[in-house]
């Protein structure tokens, strides 16, 4: 049915990736090189063949291949990127026809439907990936998103060339001052630009983040723009305090997987005590208007085991988490590879949290509303409980579990650590697959 396939994202959103390639959407999966900011404007990209094809496909009720992650999450009732984007168009799947007809974006869908996918509305919601400058080397990350991992992958490739490709050398588009200047000028000129989400690398570590924000402030447009960014929580930079005040709203996502030392292993070489201390500092800024803080989690086969403790932390501190996707890459870290025994333990832990706090799923639209924090937390816990309880084990699970051991062993040879020091309850499972 149309309401289960349609997404409004290509009518108001686009992504600029780490190397300057434009991409259809922050959730879209496409390995093909795209048009690049070095020689293409955002406006040109927005009416490119790629974007027109995507719009036409969605209008015709197709499920584009690059959107499969969202449809997968939809199938578990989790709030997918597609749901979030529909929400930004004022469209509800539960009352789809009335709300799409009433959407302020309806006229833009209609224009594209009558004009071979052309858009007559500029992207007003952007994700801008600044590059891969990062002080972390999370095991689920990749070299294009972490300069530290980019270096380490050279070693990992020598250890296991089938699991770790030799990293591609590239230069972040933000390192070219002329390109950066031209793109920021285009940003300033976008009528009604509403939202920019900056990603790194580690944005608070990247000078491009501060320089773009300062340009937007100087141009007088910051007060109309909501800025979001995601940090790994290892850095507290005082400059953030003054930036917050200049934008219409500021959304700060803090990437964390657990509140225990396991986080140090996954988000290597993080120091969870330091990160929690930094989070306390960020949370203290919430009293200033316009700052919304959320934890950004991407649970994997290991961290899902300690998700209950993270949920307890969220309830105690009244901070939500946004889980942007169910981890699908690297495949060997997928939650769906849990052993039967571990899976039952995880479900039991999440059931205990649900029972302890009497959590129930409710209809929540705007997850960043401060008065809805308890509901957002409840929904997340219930969503994950239901996902872990009901996912279908992949047919090739044993293959990926064996890969998992090789994947961990390569990292551990490079880093001199051991997962068993962080996840001792997994020993039987890991030994069974050759650890």
């Amino acid at each position, binding site marked *: *049915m*149309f*309401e289960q396939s*349609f997404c409004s994202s290509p009518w*108001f*959103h686009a992504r600029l990736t780490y190397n300057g390639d434009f991409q259809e959407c922050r959730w879209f999966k496409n390995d093909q090189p795209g048009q690049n900011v070095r020689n293409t404007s955002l406006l040109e990209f927005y009416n490119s063949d790629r974007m027109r094809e995507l719009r036409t496909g969605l*209008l*015709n*009720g197709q499920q584009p291949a690059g959107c499969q992650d969202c449809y997968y999450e939809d199938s578990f009732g989790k709030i997918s990127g597609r749901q979030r984007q529909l*929400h*930004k*168009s*004022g469209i509800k799947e539960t*009352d*789809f*026809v*009335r*709300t*799409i*007809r*009433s*959407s*302020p*974006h309806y006229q833009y*869908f*209609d224009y594209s*439907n009558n004009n071979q996918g052309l858009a007559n509305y500029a992207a*007003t*919601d952007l994700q801008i990936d600044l590059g891969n400058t990062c002080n972390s080397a999370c095991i689920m990350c990749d070299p294009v998103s972490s300069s530290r991992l980019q270096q380490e992958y050279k070693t990992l490739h020598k250890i296991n060339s089938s699991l770790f490709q030799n990293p591609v050398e590239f230069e972040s588009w933000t390192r070219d001052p002329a390109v950066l200047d031209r793109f920021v000028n285009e940003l300033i000129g976008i009528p009604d630009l*509403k*939202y920019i989400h900056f990603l790194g690398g580690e944005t608070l570590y990247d000078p491009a983040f501060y320089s773009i924000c300062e340009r937007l402030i100087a141009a007088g447009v910051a007060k109309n723009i*909501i800025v979001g960014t995601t940090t790994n929580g290892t850095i507290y930079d005082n400059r953030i305090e003054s930036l917050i005040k200049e934008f219409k709203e500021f959304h700060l996502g803090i990437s964390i997987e657990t509140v225990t030392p396991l986080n140090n292993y996954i988000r290597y070489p993080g120091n969870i005590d330091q990160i929690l201390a930094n989070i306390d500092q960020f949370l203290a800024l919430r009293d200033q208007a316009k700052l919304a803080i959320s934890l950004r989690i991407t649970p994997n086969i290991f961290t899902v085991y300690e998700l209950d403790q993270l949920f307890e932390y969220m309830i105690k501190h009244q901070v939500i988490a946004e889980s942007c996707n169910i981890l699908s890459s690297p495949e060997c870290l997928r939650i769906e590879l849990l052993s039967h025994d571990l899976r039952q333990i995880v479900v039991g832990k999440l059931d205990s949290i649900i029972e302890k706090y009497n959590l129930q799923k409710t209809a929540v*639209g*705007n997850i*960043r*509303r401060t008065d809805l924090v308890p509901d957002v937390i409840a929904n997340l816990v219930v969503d994950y409980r239901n996902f872990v309880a009901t996912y279908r084990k992949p047919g090739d699970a044993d293959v990926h579990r064996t890969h998992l051991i090789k994947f961990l062993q390569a990292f551990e040879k490079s880093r001199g650590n051991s997962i068993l020091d962080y996840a001792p309850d997994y020993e039987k499972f890991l030994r069974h697959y050759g650890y």
Partner: protein
Amino acid sequence: MHQTMKNFSDITAINTDRQLHVRLEIVTHLGAEFRMRINGHLVTDSVTEINLDLFSPIHIRSMTTNLPYAGSAVEIVSLTVNGLSVLPDYMEYARPATLWLNTLDDWEYHIDSPFYAWYHNVSGQGFVA
């Protein structure tokens, strides 16, 4: 509104007539008298129900004409549109912002069309991109 839609062209073809079901409930206290209309439709009962086009604005206008006793008043108990609560939840958009009409003044409530876009905004669903 519940037919199966296969593509966007199906959406454009739907009939938007009578897609908003508006229900207004009022109570009069101690003989208060008034004249009230919803989109021109005269309100005579404690519960008034009308159907409007999906994109229709909703205008309620009331004039209290007689308050014979000190405690006399017209009370707006509730306003719903397709089951979604508008009043008392969003009383702040009433002019004046009250649901207890105990003065001989006009009272108005206006919802600009389309209703669902308005509701997304007033119910704090975040920005429309």
